[in-house]
């Protein structure tokens, strides 16, 4: 099975600072790949390159075997679902309107949208009574569920999550982690998940990509990271997070 996403020597600079050094990375189909690392390590840059919000200064990005260009990026985006930390819901639209926004624009019928909507409500455990509400009328956890529904509405090949649980309180966060994991499994969804929390990375990640200073330091399973650290930073990072957890 070939990789869904492939970065080939892709790099990005902002002024003098390299946000991402030339990087190679493959995201496998049907798996959850977690990108982890401290703030400013380049993980957000990586994500933004993949969804085409920014273009690489050098190298290229392939999506499903096609090189991403300015011409096809708009079409490719519809094959990617994107969830950000604060949910990214549009405040002037109801939960329902947020979810069906893109489906409406690609001309889906009302029936089609309605049945997909109910399916997603069930999948994300979101009460359809809440669909007429506006984002400000929903709790943080509910907003993230709506955001997830919006991302999944058009059955994307890839789901990108940029610290989707970062702003939630611990109880809500735990519940949502569990639901997310179930959803990914049920959909056999290819997921790229960005977090700075090691426990979360271990919980979700079939594959963990540890980044630091604009480079991928190591890619592999948790066990690989723990037992065959590629670099002293890997141990340092793991131990730092562990130390906190054991308190």
């Amino acid at each position, binding site marked *: 099975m070939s990789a869904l996403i492939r970065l080939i020597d892709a790099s990005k600079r902002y002024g003098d600072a390299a946000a991402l050094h030339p990087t190679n990375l493959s995201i496998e189909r049907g798996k959850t790949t977690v990108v982890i690392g401290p703030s400013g390590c380049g993980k957000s840059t990586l994500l*933004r390159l993949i*969804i085409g*919000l920014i273009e690489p200064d050098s190298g290229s990005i392939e999506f499903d075997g096609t090189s991403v260009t300015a011409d096809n990026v*708009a*079409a490719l*985006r*519809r094959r*990617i679902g*994107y969830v*950000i*930390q*604060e949910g*990214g*819901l*549009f*405040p*002037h*639209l*109801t939960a329902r309107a947020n979810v069906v*926004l*893109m489906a409406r*624009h690609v001309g889906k019928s009302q029936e089609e949208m309605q049945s997909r909507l109910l399916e997603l409500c069930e999948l994300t455990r979101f009460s359809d009574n809440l669909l007429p509400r*506006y*984002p*400000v*009328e929903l709790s943080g956890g509910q907003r993230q569920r709506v955001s997830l529904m*919006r991302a999944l509405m058009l059955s994307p090949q890839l789901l*990108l999550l940029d610290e989707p649980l970062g702003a939630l309180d611990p109880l809500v966060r735990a519940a949502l982690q569990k639901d997310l994991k179930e959803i990914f499994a049920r959909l056999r969804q290819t997921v790229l998940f960005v977090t700075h929390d090691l426990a979360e990375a271990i919980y979700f990640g079939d594959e963990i990509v540890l980044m630091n200073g604009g480079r991928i330091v190591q890619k592999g399973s948790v066990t690989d990271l723990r037992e065959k650290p590629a670099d002293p930073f890997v141990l340092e990072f793991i131990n730092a997070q562990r130390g906190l957890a054991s308190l």
Partner: protein
Amino acid sequence: MNRTKKGKQSGRSLPVSWVPHFLLIFSCVPVFLIHSSSAAEITIGSKKFTESYVLGEIAKRVLIDAGIPAKHREGMGGTIILWQALRGGQIDVYPEYTGTIAQEILKANRALSLDQIRDSLAKFGVAMTEPLGFNNTYALVMRRSQAQQLGVRTISDLRKHPELKIGLTHEFLDRQDGWQPLRERYALPQRNVIGIDHALGYSALANGSIDVKDAYSTDAKIEQNDLVALEDDLQFFPKYEAAFLFRLSMRPEAISALRRLEGTLDEKRMVRLNAEAERTKNYTRAADLYFERGAGLASGAGESFPQKLTRWTLRHLQLAGFSLLLSVIVGIPLGIVASRGGAIGQGILGFASVVQTIPSLALLALLVPLPFFGISIRTAIAALFLYGLLPIVRNTASGLQDIPRSLRESAIALGLSPTTRLWEIYLPMASRSILSGIKTSAVINVGTATLAALIGAGGLGEPILSGLNLNDHVTILEGAIPAAVLALLVQWLFDLLDRVLIPKGLRL
């Protein structure tokens, strides 16, 4: 108060002595509103001071008595405005003074004979009647008591009293035949010279803030305020004989009717008519005095106050509404472009800000000479439109810029097209800011539209200007109170509109 003085003032139009002048202009408003005059009707213009109003009424009366339909556009503005309106055919006749014609219209730097004036005017398709019989020239006036006490009788006598405070109209200060050459001719030593509106100058003179001011020799205020005119012992001031200017193309029977007025009005009579007009504020009645018929005139007795108020208010709303609509249509797209920043965005915001800093009168005055504009409602709408632009452009730009980057990126990442992003996401999210910009513009426009009367575009500024002109507070309030009420209503209406136009999700 202003009646006489403006007679000669020709020139420089609005910006100069703004308060009084624009008030006067207001009176012209009605004129322009109704700009389609029937072909057969003769349109008479007048400047914004009493004597010109009265002469305009007299001309109207003599034409109507001759069976020729005529209407009078009162107080359209200063010399240049009337002259351009005459050349442009918006009016057919207006009263003017020979000195003004030579100095301000023909720009001659010496005295011209009547024949020389006629020859020069003919090139513009304009003719002049014989003088009406009085010479309304400039004069310097003082309080009678002070003049007697100091022994000042002539302008030369002023040399002995360098401490006297002089207050002159802005026009007189700047005229070619005004203060500078006068001071040189008489070698006057006074350095304490201020510019002051004509009407306010009389009050200043009365309370001693100034001691000497300029006036017109037929000004009824001179006698009313117990002032004396100083003798022009060096014959500095040119002659300002009143006559009617008219278009050569005017129908012959109208010309001959007008000519019946030649040589029939001496100074004393004119002073009496001016005084009557000032006293009663009824120019038609003053004109009737000329015809020595005390009563029963047919001509436009007038609208009732509710009718006038309706007319002013409708015009006011028309001015503010049209200009606001234009500001919205142009301002929102400009704001969208400006929100993207860069040199173009900076340029747009810079331009809109600069326009805002131009005083409204100056902006009106700048637009008047442009071909398409002139003295018309178009000019007023254009000026109001420019004023209304900045709040809308700025609020549109800042409303869009305030949308969090994460939401912009969500819209992009979702795959929405740029057009959809703008219309369905960005503009609705910026709607509160955009609407508040529109509201600011609307309130500014309702307020500033009172200045439109200055260039004859009408509205609630009309009574304000007339009131200022006549120093009549009740008339001022007739315009000022409705204008304030209108501004409040507009504010309230937009508050209601917020509820309709701002998406509910943004109001929770």
